[in-house]
């Protein structure tokens, strides 16, 4: 696979020998084609922001794009673990912002996909330590070098949220079909800057439960949030296995969840990929099995 990140970096527009240090008051260089900066946010914790960021980043990298995933969850970093890169993290986002190291020192390259990089968050610091303007500048710098800058937003609506959002042009709002998650998503949507382009991902959908009427459907959720629907991700046991291993679920063969993330990535690239209706695959036999506690849920 060609090293696309290098290609972008060496694009003619980039001044030769440009320092990758954060230069706060340096005049902006010749116009570089900026990548897309996209924040993945939800308000509520535990709805799958980090998983979504990791898998979309990986899928976009597979599609040949240069991608950086930024962990904006200072103090509670997890994107490194989900990507299986936790042993390779040495410097982090705050080191870059405080000019203790260069951008390249902090970026961690994925083992398999060389065009996927991670900007880890600091684990021993607090979200309030990150000034919004510097975060915006950092994202901007990353946009100059990567086609996609995916920012994993922390839960909550405080400073960490503002930092994650400040440099983003687009937002993917992740929610699940639960009252609390939809409520928090609604709140977050109201707090996002008006000029941000909003898309919705409904995660952890269980088609069998929707069919039975024991879970809100995607239509129910989006009747309330009214955003452009970017994708629907079914709930699956594979996601837990993937997280255990530190591999993205899109790498697990036959995973519906992985396939859903891949489709979302293609939609992000402008392809017209229909959202399947996730038919309930259970039949009489599997229902008996699951009632007995056997077989897959």
């Amino acid at each position, binding site marked *: 696979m060609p090293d696309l990140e290098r290609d972008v970096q060496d694009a003619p527009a980039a001044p030769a020998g440009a320092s990758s240090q954060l230069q706060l008051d340096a005049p902006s260089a010749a116009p570089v084609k900026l990548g897309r900066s996209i924040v993945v946010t939800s308000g509520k914790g535990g709805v799958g922001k980090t998983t979504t960021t990791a898998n979309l980043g990986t899928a976009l990298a597979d599609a040949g794009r240069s991608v950086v995933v930024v962990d904006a969850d200072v103090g509670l970093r997890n994107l490194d673990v989900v990507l299986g890169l936790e042993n390779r993290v040495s410097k982090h986002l705050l080191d870059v912002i405080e000019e203790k190291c260069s951008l390249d020192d902090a970026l961690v390259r994925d083992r398999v996909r060389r065009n996927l990089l991670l900007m880890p968050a600091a684990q021993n610091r607090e979200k309030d330590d990150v000034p919004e303007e510097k975060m915006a500048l950092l994202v901007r710098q990353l946009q100059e070098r990567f086609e996609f800058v995916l920012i994993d937003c922390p839960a909550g609506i405080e400073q960490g949220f503002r930092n994650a959002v400040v440099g983003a042009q687009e937002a993917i709002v992740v929610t699940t079909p639960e*009252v609390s998650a939809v409520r928090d998503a609604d709140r977050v949507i109201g707090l996002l800057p008006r000029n941000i382009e909003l898309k919705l991902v409904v995660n952890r959908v269980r088609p069998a439960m929707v069919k039975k009427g*024991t879970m809100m459907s995607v239509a129910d959720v989006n009747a*309330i949030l009214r*955003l452009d629907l970017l994708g629907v991700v079914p709930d699956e046991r594979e996601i837990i296995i993937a997280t255990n291993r530190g591999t993205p679920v899109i790498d697990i063969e036959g995973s519906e969840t992985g396939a859903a993330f891949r489709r979302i990535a293609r939609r992000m690239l402008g392809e017209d990929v229909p959202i399947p209706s996730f038919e309930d695959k259970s039949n009489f036999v599997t229902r008996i099995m699951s009632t007995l506690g056997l077989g897959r849920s």
Partner: protein
Amino acid sequence: MIDFLAKFFRREEASSSRARERLRLVLMSDRVSLAPDIFDAMKGEMLDVLRRYLEIDERGMDVHFENAERQFALMANIPVREVKTHDAIALARRVAVPEGAEFTSAKQTASADAANGSAAQQATMTVPRRRRRRRARTAAIAPLASQPNDDAGTPQSNDDAGTPQPNDDAGAPPPSG
């Protein structure tokens, strides 16, 4: 065994409709409490109307939204000191809707009222389309902020003179009280 059969044949309650309903109510109250400017404007306009008919004890009043079990309601407790006399009401109403200006201002405000009315309603009472809600909010705030009493039909209603319309009503008596 019976337990097992019960588990197998039991039809679970279709709780998704319950989730939908709870979500609808909780979001209505969230959204209202997040738009205090709109709430204050609405309260002000309601009081303007009530004051034409009643003497109100404004310090003792309490207007708020309540998320009751099955519905979202506007609760108002407004102590009345006195009901106005017939003549006082007639006077208050005449001042509120100046006769000379009645025709033109009615025509002028009709469309504005319709726009504001539907916008305000969208912002609070329904679960509106997201992008529309955003616009609706600003639309609802802007005219209220710039011409606070215009739509309420209060004495200041000859603010209309500022519009490009020929101001036939420029000679109307200045509002009193």
